[in-house]
């Protein structure tokens, strides 16, 4: 625990990921396709020139069932003309016209989408031209939730090491911005009563966590232990930790009961998340589910990007095939 607590030294202030600027690498941490849900991907380029985008569906869950731990990866490439937008439903894909084919993912799929801006020959570029939006759609109740893809801005040095992409680091020849040293997310206590609906209702927050490092050559999922520091409205602080291998998506209460309304004791909470010392960085997206209770239960959700703080001293790596 002391090692974990000592991780709370703020990383070097500097460039870090963005969810609001065109970037060179986009990560869509939460992509879900199953009987109940589907995902819509929107990508566009802010470049006045043609941009090539090399994308990878990374299924981190299916691969692990009953087999050696590993990733299932499906890749494809798109060509986007000047400021062109493109969108597709993950389960349907896109035909081989226009920007290019996108394979359909028939499901079940629980994983992420990773896209890298490259040159015509496939060498990664630091062009920082890509923006991405995800819409998570529930088929039955038509609920939708949207979040922005997490972007890594590239520098002029991007691609110098070929298909091994270092994210962050302290060198002057950094190729891409790094993962944040810390994430912050404001949320409501898990299982708390919805402040607007009242008795019988509940609010739960799901976290999706993916390691920044991706090995798309050997398909070995990265492992990171995430350390949580939760502060409630009374300024009381609670701690928890959880290992993540490849990908995680679940309610906060499955991480630890410190997130529960009964433990926190207040409605609002602020959670800081950091990797344990020596572990790779990670990316986070939250999705808040509201349930009405009563005889006819209604449910709706909203996704939100977390706040990043600081940058890691050590780089993370994306290894492209």
């Amino acid at each position: 625990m002391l090692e974990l607590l000592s991780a709370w030294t703020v990383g070097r202030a500097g460039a870090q990921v963005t969810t609001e600027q065109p970037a060179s690498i986009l990560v869509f941490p939460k992509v879900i396709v199953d009987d109940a849900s589907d995902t819509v991907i929107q990508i566009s380029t802010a470049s006045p020139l043609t941009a090539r985008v090399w994308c990878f569906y990374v299924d981190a869950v299916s691969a692990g069932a009953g087999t050696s731990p590993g990733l299932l990866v499906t890749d494809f490439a798109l060509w986007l003309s000047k400021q062109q937008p493109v969108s597709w439903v993950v389960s349907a894909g896109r035909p081989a016209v226009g920007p290019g084919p996108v394979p359909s993912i028939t499901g079940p799929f629980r994983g992420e989408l990773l896209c890298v801006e490259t040159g015509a020959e496939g060498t990664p570029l630091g062009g920082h031209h890509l923006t991405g939006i995800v819409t998570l759609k529930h088929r039955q109740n038509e609920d939708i939730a949207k979040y922005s893809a997490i972007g890594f801005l590239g520098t002029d040095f991007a691609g110098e090491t070929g298909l091994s992409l270092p994210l962050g680091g302290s060198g002057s020849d950094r190729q891409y911005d790094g993962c944040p040293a810390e994430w912050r997310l404001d949320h409501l206590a898990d299982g708390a009563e919805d402040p607007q609906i009242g008795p019988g209702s509940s609010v739960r927050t799901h976290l999706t966590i993916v390691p920044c490092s991706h090995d798309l050559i050997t398909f070995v999922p990265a492992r990171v232990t995430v350390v949580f520091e939760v502060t409630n409205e009374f300024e009381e602080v609670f701690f928890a930790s959880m290992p993540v291998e490849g990908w995680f998506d679940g309610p906060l209460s499955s991480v630890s009961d410190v997130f529960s309304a009964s433990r926190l004791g207040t409605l609002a909470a602020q959670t800081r998340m950091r990797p344990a010392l020596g572990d790779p960085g990670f990316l986070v997206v939250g999705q808040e589910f509201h349930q009405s209770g009563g005889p006819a239960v209604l449910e709706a959700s909203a996704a939100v990007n977390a706040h990043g703080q600081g940058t890691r001293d050590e780089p993370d790596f994306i290894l492209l095939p």
Partner: protein
Amino acid sequence: MVMTGQSGRQVIGVVFAVVAAAAGGRAHGQASDQAAAIVIYPYVVVDSARGIDTTIQFSNAASERAITARCALLDANGHCAADGRVCRHAEDCPGGDPCVPGWLGTDFRVRLTSGQPLAWRASRGLPPDEVPLDGVTRVGPRGESNFYTVVPPIPEDPFAGMLFCYAIDDDAYAPIERNDLKGEATIEQYQQEPPRLDVAKYNAVGFQAIPGRNNGDESLVLGGEEAEYTGCRNVDLINHFFDGAVEPVSGTRNVFTTLVLIPCDQDLILYLRTGKTPVQFLVYDEYGSRYTRYAMLGPYLASPLSDIDPRLFDYSVVGSLSVQTRIRGLDSGLIALVIEQHVDPTDPTRVASAAVNVHGQGNRVRADVIGYRRAICGDGVVDPPERCDDGNTVAGDCCSATCQPEPAGQPCADDANACTDDRCDGRGACVHAPYEPLPEGCGCCQFESLAEAPNGCVGDLDGDGVVNSAEVEICQRFKQLGYRSSCDADLSGSIDPFEIAMVRDNYTYGCPAGATVCTGPADSSVCGPLTANRSVPLEACDRTSPAAAAAGCPALRATYTPTPSTTPMATPSASETSTLGPTATATPTGVAPNCCTAGNTPGCSDPGCQLCVCGKDGLCCVERWGERCVGIARQECAAACRCWQCAGDCDGDDVVTIAELVRSVRAALDPDRIGDCWAADRNDDGTVTINELVAAVDRALSGCGAS
């Protein structure tokens, strides 16, 4: 020397590192994914009729020190010019009335302790007694509190507007360069009938302070050469679908996008609305086509894209699903937010929404400025971090010389009311609460109806615990002129016969034990509000009705029976002599006069008439049968009372004297004095005419004859 290849890249890398180090990292401009010194919630909406509310989450990203923020809630509602109802367009106003744009600000202050999150609903705000660390009953582990935090609710419902907060220094009353604020907003719609639940969430937009740049004046400069904070974006990028397109997953909904746009330039001093600003829209569809539109947009826009231009953003016109729109403010920078809505075409009230912060590109070269008002103690305006401002910088008046509340309980200015204790309330005001216990002579009514109260004493006007004849007469006399709270037991605004009976009851038998009576002004503001709350109004209570008690009427201690005044209920003592009303002519005691004759004893000889008259004026059966009683008898007891048959015979003794002629003339000159001589009004029309005066003189000369 030309540097090429590896050496060139090394030099470039060194330069980059130097620049990056000097800047403290990349200047990202506005951002919603990092803590900042200024946070803006562009879209705060409440509509209780449709079950819509916004939950604001606001937290301190610094885990080691508290932070104070000054906030402004800006109401962007338009209002119809004639009736002031909320409107968005002129079409919302009746009769072609214009919809006048509004821009009204409400200032408040929030203090967050180390690492603390707060949350509140916009419709309710966060009152001081609901802050988690109020500084009185609870403080944080470091001794910090949310003291001074008061979040007001939205000023009107429905409400649409924005929330603006920036970090300030508690002592210097000025912005500080601390990038520790972060916020989120959740817009939720919940209705039970029809069943609806929809949630959308976004991050507040942040502007980071640039260290060492704030010059302490009354403006926050965003971007530009004199930047104190990171600037607004040059271009906002939104990825969306064309309005009206079929949602691609289920194919059962149509997609619409609501765009929220506000200018970066803001006036938080006078809350002057900035004028319309030119905005450029560049729209790129997925086929590579580009469309351009310029629009003049007002200072607050929250509108479907297709309302901005019904052709440009309409799927049926363009035919493309995906679109990238680039938005640029040509005058002021812009802050944007997008809400995507999937609408059921068969039931447009069924909507699924999702909000998302927009992307941006580049920073504006020109600065945007947010003007704010520095707190000035003594200007009469409470500007955070002031907690009071009584218009002076004098201490000892409950608001200190530095505009902080003086301790609760401290004595303050006397309101010249002996029943109230004048003390500071601890929030900057001098309050005048009734003493506890109340001193003698003071009253305090806390119950809803005197008649309901177990210790109510109806009629005890001076609160001395006794109802005397003067008080009875006052209640009687003023019953038609207005009410005195102690006479009007059910606070109906009039004193009815049953209440007079209650007054007489207390006069005869004394007030109930422990009775207290309100002695404040007619509105009883000293004692607190009184309200009528009876299932059976006292006007319906008839003491002679056997069903009265069963109907819920208060029981009197004596059952009144209309008996002649040979058994008067009370005889006035010398100390209780009433000075009100005309002087009655004395009649022999012990003999009940006829109902048309005034006397000094209560009651009259005709029981039926006596009943009628006393029902209207109880004093007639309590104190004496005066002229007033005779006048009522003339009206109520026509068969029993023939006292007006001799014109001018004011006292009914069958003789018209000179004095009675004078009274008749006085009544003729002043109709309000008709009671001086009812007998002069031969035709009961309330006036004495010349003819009636002549008739009176005639009787004076020739006599009345047999009555």
